[in-house]
């Protein structure tokens, strides 16, 4: 039998913020719970029935009391709301310089890809002290990426990308759980987050033997799927050039524009006719079933890399 623990590890920048919020709510909860319990206990003893013929004086109520015990709790709850919402807002907005990791959930494993090309299953190595941004999708049902030590949880929904981020503050191995029920082996869809000292992380990165970075894998895929035959870099192909597309505004046939983000590129690969670029014909076949979610991620990274100015550092 494992040792008894009462409080989880605190291993991300957001974890102490969540815990402070918890302490505040706990204080309020304990205060009111004790207040109610002790009042009941005191009244029950003090005013216990001594004779069956007792008839207490009628007390109908008191407006002042009613107002007091409505307004004070309401004020407290508004503090809870504001505080909680501000923590949530920070949890939802990844910083710009975050390390990008791609996550694909499927029944019943986590597949994780680093920009440098390392691919992991059910284990994620990340450096200490650097914000990490996860872009996640699912191949089948809804999963949820949950790291208790980071106080982070985000559902991973098929058909779209969801994002979360964290910044580890303590080296160590932490649980990764799937928190949204996903079928037979839901409880075995677990893994580890390895937070390493930056130097160790560099060693780990160079220790693996990846077949090139994510973008390079994407380029290979781009060529093997024959995308390159139509999407010519100089724009002379039957399909638009993808150079410099990422992050920019795309004009669509039939009016309207869309920002070329991960979601849009994913949709264009899997459902090419959903949004047609102005001036082009809907000739592209769907790649649904031909390319995995991980492949899509590699293609996205390749297209992103096309958008980089020479010598630039990315976005």
């Amino acid at each position, binding site marked *: 039998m494992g040792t008894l623990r009462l409080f989880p590890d605190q291993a991300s920048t957001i974890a102490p913020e969540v815990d402070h919020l918890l302490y505040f709510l706990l204080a309020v909860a304990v205060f009111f719970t004790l207040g109610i319990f002790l009042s009941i206990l005191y009244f029950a003893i003090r005013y216990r029935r001594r004779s069956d013929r007792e008839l207490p004086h009628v007390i109908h109520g008191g407006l002042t009391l009613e107002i007091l015990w409505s307004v004070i709790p309401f004020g407290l709850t508004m503090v809870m709301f504001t505080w909680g919402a501000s923590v949530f807002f920070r949890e939802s*907005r990844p910083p*710009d310089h975050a390390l990008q990791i791609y996550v694909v959930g499927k029944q019943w494993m986590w597949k994780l890809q680093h920009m440098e090309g390392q691919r992991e299953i059910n284990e994620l190595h990340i450096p200490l002290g650097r914000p990490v*941004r996860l*872009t996640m999708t699912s191949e089948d049902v809804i999963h949820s990426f949950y790291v208790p030590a980071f106080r982070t949880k985000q559902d991973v929904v098929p058909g779209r990308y969801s*994002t979360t981020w964290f910044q580890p503050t303590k080296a160590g191995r932490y649980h990764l759980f799937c928190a949204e029920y996903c079928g037979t082996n839901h409880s075995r869809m677990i893994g580890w987050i390895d937070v390493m000292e930056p130097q160790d992380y560099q060693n780990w990165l160079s220790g693996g033997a990846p077949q090139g970075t994510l973008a390079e894998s994407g380029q290979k895929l781009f060529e093997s799927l024959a995308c390159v035959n139509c999407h010519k870099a100089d724009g002379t192909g039957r399909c638009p050039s993808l150079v410099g597309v990422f*992050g920019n505004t795309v004009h669509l046939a039939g009016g309207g524009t869309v*920002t070329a983000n*991960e979601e849009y590129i994913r949709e264009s690969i899997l459902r090419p006719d959903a949004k047609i670029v102005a001036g082009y014909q809907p000739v592209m076949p769907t790649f649904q079933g031909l390319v995995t979610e991980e492949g899509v991620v590699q293609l996205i990274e390749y297209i992103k890399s096309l958008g980089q100015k020479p010598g630039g550092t990315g*976005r």
Partner: protein
Amino acid sequence: MSEHVDSVKTYALVWIILLILTAGTTAVAHVDLGPFSVVVALAIAVCKMLLVALFFMHVRHSTRLTRLVLVGGLLWFFILLALTMADIVTRGWLGVPGK
């Protein structure tokens, strides 16, 4: 118990207005009013609903309670609609993730 018996003429008039509105909404659908196409189509539908409810379902003679039930039901549908759409409409507001 006093029952209001409306005249056949009233009912016939309402009926004819309903038929005219149906023809009208079908005709106006072919005109490009931009985003107002939806507004006009729904406005006409609401008018038709009110006519049916007030006259054919006798809401204009009915108790306050009946009207409250009717308004309450529609209000609840709008709660369902409005709060769900609050999610659907604002999903893209955060922009490109991480940007």
